[in-house]
């Protein structure tokens, strides 16, 4: 076996679901402009976010400022799940992510790629997962996440 495809007893998407949860892909859109944009909805109950990748598809401008991500529940207190990092001039093809740890910054610190969570995930309450920028400018990003429902009937949708 030289192609790295394994023996095929669980195909790649089943394997992803079985090990990380349900995948949800959000097509590339322009960055928020000095404020927050909802990128995913959490519906029907709590979920465990198990992975998060934001991929830069169009070069970020030089004055977009800092990027962060927030859990905004319909009831309860908003939680910043990745604190702000300056992303000016982030090139297409670079990725951003989060560690899952309370109070930790968006990763990577400058440019490049992102590791997986350092926790078993982030619990998200019913509400929205929001993307915040402190400045204005060009740039686009797509998102790929995986999650596990924690309550009966809980799921996530693309906003």
């Amino acid at each position, binding site marked *: 076996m030289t192609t790295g495809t394994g023996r095929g007893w669980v195909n790649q998407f089943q394997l992803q679901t079985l090990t990380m949860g349900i995948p949800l892909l959000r097509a590339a859109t322009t960055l928020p402009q000095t404020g927050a944009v909802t990128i995913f909805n959490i519906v029907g109950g709590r979920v465990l976010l198990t992975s998060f990748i934001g991929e830069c598809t169009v070069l970020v401008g030089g004055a977009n400022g800092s990027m962060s991500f927030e859990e905004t529940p319909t009831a309860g*207190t908003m939680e910043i799940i990745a604190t702000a990092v300056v992303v000016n001039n982030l090139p297409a093809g670079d990725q951003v992510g989060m560690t899952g740890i309370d109070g930790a910054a968006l990763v990577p610190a400058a440019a490049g790629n992102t590791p997986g969570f*350092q926790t078993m995930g982030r619990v998200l309450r019913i509400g929205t997962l929001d993307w915040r920028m402190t400045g204005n400018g060009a740039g686009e990003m797509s998102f790929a996440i995986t999650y596990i429902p924690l309550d009966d009937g809980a799921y996530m949708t693309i906003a």
Partner: protein
Amino acid sequence: MVMDLNYMHGMGLSTALLGIRLVRPTSNVAQTGVLPLFNIVGGNVRMTLIIGHITTVLGAVGNMSLEDTPTTGTMEVLCAVVAAGTYAQDDLLGITGIPANAMVPAATGGIPGMTTRGVNLRVGTLNQRCSASSTGQIQWTVWYIPLEVGAYMSVA
């Protein structure tokens, strides 16, 4: 032919990845001492996630923590104390899995999953401790994996 690539859905997926879910009805918080939340019966289990949902704002309950209190052996504090009077209704409580780390979040908001691959619990009880007495209610949910034949958790 369209293939169903997600052959395991929803709560089945939760069970496969986190283990068995156990929901404790909302109740008053511990009053200047411990309150058993869950029983561990028949053998060791690994708790993979615990969520405390604040359903009624806590009064001056002081510091809060969680403890593994086995019927045989030494009590283990599962997290360091946190001042619990700061949380809002519908905020969540959790632990990192590292005993020296305080309960999360530090003040208000949501929670991460554990930074460890769970916490082993011995036969006995999982207790909540508060250093003072006051009002407030929490609804607790745990997910766990039995580590021995016949091991399970139940609501205390």
